[in-house]
């Protein structure tokens, strides 16, 4: 073998050794990457399970928030109704207007169809209707305190609620489905008797009971103060007329 050939062969062997060394290194690197990939792949299902459970937890929270939102929305609407009712009841000192507002609240907020407002006459201890809807006021009987549902409610001051399945039973003027006392502290000045409801009103909602409570107090105060005001106005004009007569 000539020296030239030996040199060439040595070069090839060197190159081959270098190449092998490079390949071995790459091989080691690839093996390491493969091991890392395999380990990551092994972990993936576990991560997936964790993510899925977190997703379900968030979904549950979301549902809870949505339900809470609906509840708050309902509460908000109820408060708006109560606010409007109390605002309107105290917006006037005219007795007829107060009666009209109570009527509007009963129709528009409660959904009542037939009802009557009775006031107590302290002297005769009887109740007489001063306003009604769906019933002829003049045909409604006078009630003695303690007599029938209306008289009992006016005497005891306790609410009367009939069984819900009789909500739209035929109207009997002596037997209202609901009867609420109009109270100023412990003094009962009258009652609101509800006999029947609009067709679409099939059950009483929680806000209806709150409206009944509100009516029991606020309507009573509004009726009482407007009555006092109109009486004092009448007395004032009588006195003024008398004074004018005396001084003329």
């Amino acid at each position, binding site marked *: 073998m000539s020296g030239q050939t030996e040199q060439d062969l040595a070069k090839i062997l060197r190159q081959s050794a270098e190449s092998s060394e490079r390949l071995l290194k790459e091989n080691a690197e690839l093996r390491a990457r493969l091991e890392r990939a395999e380990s990551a792949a092994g972990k993936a299902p576990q991560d997936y399970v964790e993510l899925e459970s977190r997703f379900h937890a968030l979904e549950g929270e979301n549902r809870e928030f949505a339900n809470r939102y609906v509840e708050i929305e309902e509460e908000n*609407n109820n408060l708006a109704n109560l606010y409007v009712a109390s605002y309107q009841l105290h*917006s006037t000192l005219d007795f007829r207007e107060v009666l009209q507002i109570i009527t509007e609240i009963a129709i528009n*907020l409660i959904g009542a169809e037939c009802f009557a407002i009775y006031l107590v006459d302290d002297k005769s201890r009887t109740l007489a209707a001063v306003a009604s809807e769906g019933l002829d006021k003049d045909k409604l009987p006078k009630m003695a305190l303690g007599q029938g549902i209306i008289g009992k409610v006016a005497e005891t001051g306790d609410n009367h609620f009939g069984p819900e399945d009789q909500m739209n039973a035929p109207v009997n003027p002596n037997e209202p489905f609901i009867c609420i006392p109009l109270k100023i502290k412990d003094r009962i000045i009258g009652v609101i008797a509800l006999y029947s409801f*609009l067709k*679409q009103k099939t059950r009483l909602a929680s806000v209806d009971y709150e409206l009944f409570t509100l009516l029991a107090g606020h309507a009573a105060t509004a009726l009482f103060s407007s009555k006092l005001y109109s009486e004092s106005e009448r007395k004032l004009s009588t006195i003024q007329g008398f004074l004018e007569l005396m001084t003329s």
Partner: protein
Amino acid sequence: MNVAQLTALVVEDSPTMRQLIVFALSRIKNLKVIEADDGVDGLKKLSSGKFDILITDINMPIMDGLKLVSMVRNGDTHKGIPIVIITTEGAQEDRQRALALGANAYITKPIQAPQVISKVKELLKIA
């Protein structure tokens, strides 16, 4: 971003009902609410401004809701305005007449704020 202001006209003789409707509508963003006591007052207000929706009761003194719907649909201004009428369940004839005269939708008493809001939003095509 500036969102165009919309205006609603509420025609209702009962102050209680009017306040309830205004209360409900106040929860719709960019909706200004103007109130009228009866049909005549409603027509007067319609002619003096630009309105995007009309909500009216049927039973009112001086001019009722049916007459108002008819006059709006046959008038020059606002003839295409969406109209919502408010009726009681028993007043089915009135409701049919109002719809025949050109009302777009109806709400029955006792009214519920969500019902008013969704009906108005639907007709105004707002989310």
